């Protein structure tokens, strides 16, 4: 997946602040979300993600700050909301109405094509449960109906607030796949989560906040590269592991032996040339490599370091 960046970002926030009496929920937040990207909005619980999203959608008035959504000023939500689909603070729909009735109500309200209801129900996998009452849905089904409601608008920008909240691993996987499918159509997706690992697989851009302030904003692959990457090497013969460790250390690599396996850590991520160099050195020393696999194990650790860095 590639990041499509046009001159006008889908979302641009400048110095956004929300203060509730003595508590500052969002603190001078400035950020951009490139058009066509799948942007992960990451932060621990209480970091200000939902408040930021609510301000973006005209639900909450910023104390100070400005911004634009799809090129329209933040204080004119009536101009940009028809082009935005959103699920914020969980799916809030009428419990006594069926899934289909809830969507029909929203379609009437937003002047949407009622023929689109079946299509979005199909898309989120609720075609055969559309006539069941919302209150009888499981949490996962409620989340999916919330996404269906957001998709009714055929949006250019989809804003999803913790869409995997409360879901089991299968449900999370389903929602992630749905987001990836939506993004493949060229729509901009802005999705929040308190767990980086939950959404990093589908994001092309990351914005991280903590205590209402931005701590990282940039391409997801850059963050992943910054996190450092390791290569796991397993020689064919166990007694070659120690020999290869010495060899690679002498060549300047950060190699470490654990449980018959050699781990080499790179600060900037392994390039193809470095991986090939390791393989060549092993071969020249007569070591046959049975396994050589890049691993991205430090991502969450890097994210936590960032958060702790800000906290301290």
């Amino acid at each position: 997946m590639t990041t499509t960046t046009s001159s006008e970002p889908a979302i641009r926030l400048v110095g956004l602040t929300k203060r509730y009496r003595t508590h500052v929920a969002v603190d001078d937040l400035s950020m951009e979300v490139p058009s066509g990207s799948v942007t992960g909005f990451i932060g621990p619980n209480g970091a200000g993600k939902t408040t930021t999203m609510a301000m973006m959608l005209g639900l909450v008035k910023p104390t100070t700050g400005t911004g634009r959504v799809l090129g329209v000023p933040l204080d004119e939500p009536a101009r940009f909301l028809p082009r935005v689909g959103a699920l914020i603070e969980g799916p809030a729909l009428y419990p006594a109405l069926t899934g289909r009735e809830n969507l029909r109500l929203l379609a009437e309200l937003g002047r949407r094509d009622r023929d689109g209801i079946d299509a979005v129900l199909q898309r989120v996998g609720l075609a055969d449960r559309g006539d069941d009452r919302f209150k009888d849905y499981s949490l996962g089904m409620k989340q999916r109906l919330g996404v269906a409601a957001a998709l009714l608008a055929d949006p250019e920008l989809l804003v999803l607030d913790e869409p995997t909240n409360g879901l089991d691993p299968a449900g999370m996987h389903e929602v992630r796949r749905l987001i990836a499918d939506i993004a493949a159509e060229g729509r901009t997706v802005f999705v929040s989560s308190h767990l980086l690992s939950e959404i990093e697989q589908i994001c092309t851009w990351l914005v991280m906040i903590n205590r209402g302030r931005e701590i990282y904003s940039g391409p997801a692959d850059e963050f992943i590269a910054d996190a450092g990457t390791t290569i796991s090497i397993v020689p064919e013969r166990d007694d070659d592991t120690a020999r290869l460790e010495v060899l690679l250390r002498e060549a300047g690599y950060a190699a470490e032996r654990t449980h018959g396996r050699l781990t080499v850590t790179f600060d900037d991520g392994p390039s193809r040339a470095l991986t090939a160099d390791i393989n060549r050195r092993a071969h020249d020393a007569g070591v046959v490599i049975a396994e050589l696999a890049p691993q991205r194990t430090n991502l969450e650790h890097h994210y936590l370091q960032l958060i702790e860095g800000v906290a301290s």
Partner: protein
Amino acid sequence: MIRVIRAEMVKLTRRRFMAYTALGAVAFGAGSAAISVLTAESGAARRGSELLSIEALSTAGGGTAAALGAVAFGAVFMFAAFIAGVAGEFTRGTFRTLLLAQPSRMKLLAGKLVALIGLCAAALAVAELSGWGVARLLAPGQGIDVSQWGSLDALGAAGEDYGRLMIWLVGWAILGTAVGAIARSVPVGVLAGLVWAGPVENVIADGWEPAQRWFPGLLLRSLLSPETAVVSTTRALATLGCYCAVAAGIAAGVVQRRDVAGA
């Protein structure tokens, strides 16, 4: 605003919901009329009382007045319905969802109010019709003359009664919407509304006569029984107009200014 009304209609015109509403309206209209007819006594009605006299019920408008007089007792339910209708949108978070599809908060609030008033107006028409029917059956047994109940004058009186009922309904609707919008919580809003419109107004009125001229609930009730009211319809309407304007202004201000999500 038309879109908001149409959206509300998706909720309000569900078959099961309509069936329950109609059933409730029939039961309430019939019950109200039965109480009016069965408690009617000969002689002039007491001022400030909803009880109708046999003489009043024997006039052309007696058939619909029978239902109307006792409908006033249903005011608390009407009030609670409007409070819950609006406050529930905030409690459930559905107001947030609706705002994402229709960003105009005023249109949302007004459309919701109009749709609910429409539903209640239809339910009250059903209640009045069923009340007339029950009153017609019970009246002869109470010595009430029903010979004028099917006349043109009776139709005119029914129209006037229904008009008063609509003003009564709109009054409760605006006050209920304002309480719901301010409270944003069904239990808090309904409790506060009912305590005020129920015991508080009536207890105070028992010991302080001007309450009948100033308290909104009592003024609204007086519209339905003008012959026994202690305040003229014109004065009641003028005072209620002021209350409703203030309530609508507060509701609009609160909904327009307050945040709908986030914390």
